[in-house]
């Protein structure tokens, strides 16, 4: 299982706010465990396309889909992801909620993606 970064160098590790279709509404990359300034360059893009979630894209996508349709408020899972060239245990922690967008209340997911320290 692996998740790769794309050619443009968008790092996977970070905090994301997504809508239920996977559109990135907010992104704050991590350097190690340090949160950097918000990155607006990928806002509006699809998470799975912007970060080129390759071989296991469906796994992550299905996890997200199942989580959104579940009653759980928090969920997490661990997979093998790439940090540049090295394979590292990566943890995705998710919580869901709502936010007003325009006149409507829209479902959103907050995803925290970090190296997993077992």
């Amino acid at each position, binding site marked *: 299982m692996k998740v790769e970064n794309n050619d443009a160098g968008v790092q996977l590790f970070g905090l994301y706010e997504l809508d239920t279709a996977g559109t990135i509404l907010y992104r704050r990359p991590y350097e190690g465990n340090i949160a950097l300034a918000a990155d607006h360059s990928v806002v509006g893009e699809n998470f799975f396309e912007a970060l080129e979630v390759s071989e296991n894209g469906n796994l992550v996508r299905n996890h997200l889909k199942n989580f959104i349709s579940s009653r759980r408020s*928090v969920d997490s899972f661990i997979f093998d992801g790439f940090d540049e060239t090295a394979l590292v245990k990566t943890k995705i922690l998710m919580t869901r909620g*709502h936010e007003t967008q325009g006149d409507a*209340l829209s479902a959103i997911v907050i995803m*925290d993606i970090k190296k997993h320290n077992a």
Partner: protein
Amino acid sequence: MAHCSLYAPRECGLNEAGETNIADFRKTEIEMTKTTPRRDNATTNPQPIMIVGSSEETRYMLRVILEIWGYEVLEAGNQEESIRLGAETNPSLILLDTSRNFTDGLENIRILKRQDEMVDIPAVVLSGYAQDTYREAAINSGATAFLVKPIDFDELRHCVSTLAGPKPSTAGPGNSR
């Protein structure tokens, strides 16, 4: 004597002035015997927000969101820790997640509110139950506001900003108000 709405689905029960909202009541009103707790220095408060709850993952996600909004955050995983941390740090707000055990969560609030250091600290209860009985039980236990999960981040931000003081950051979830 303040009133507290138990039926304000898109509001946490607070108006813009940080008082409980008595407008648009659809059902019951409860008269509370104390004024709405809001810290005197709420507009400039540098004190941390204390997140209490037994779910480490929920505490972590709340911490991440609050830190994006610019708040300093402390976590307490159990009742004893919340009493100790609360007494030591004098938080501006207690955010209590009751998703694992609602009854224990309310007992935690009651105990915290008996501590001299924390009697005036506002407490927001997060619950997976939306029913009126849970909302009423939370308010009767000393909660200032009651929010239902999945969280409405605009609502949470409004609540936190009103009770603990606003922060300049408009980044992250819940910035549409």
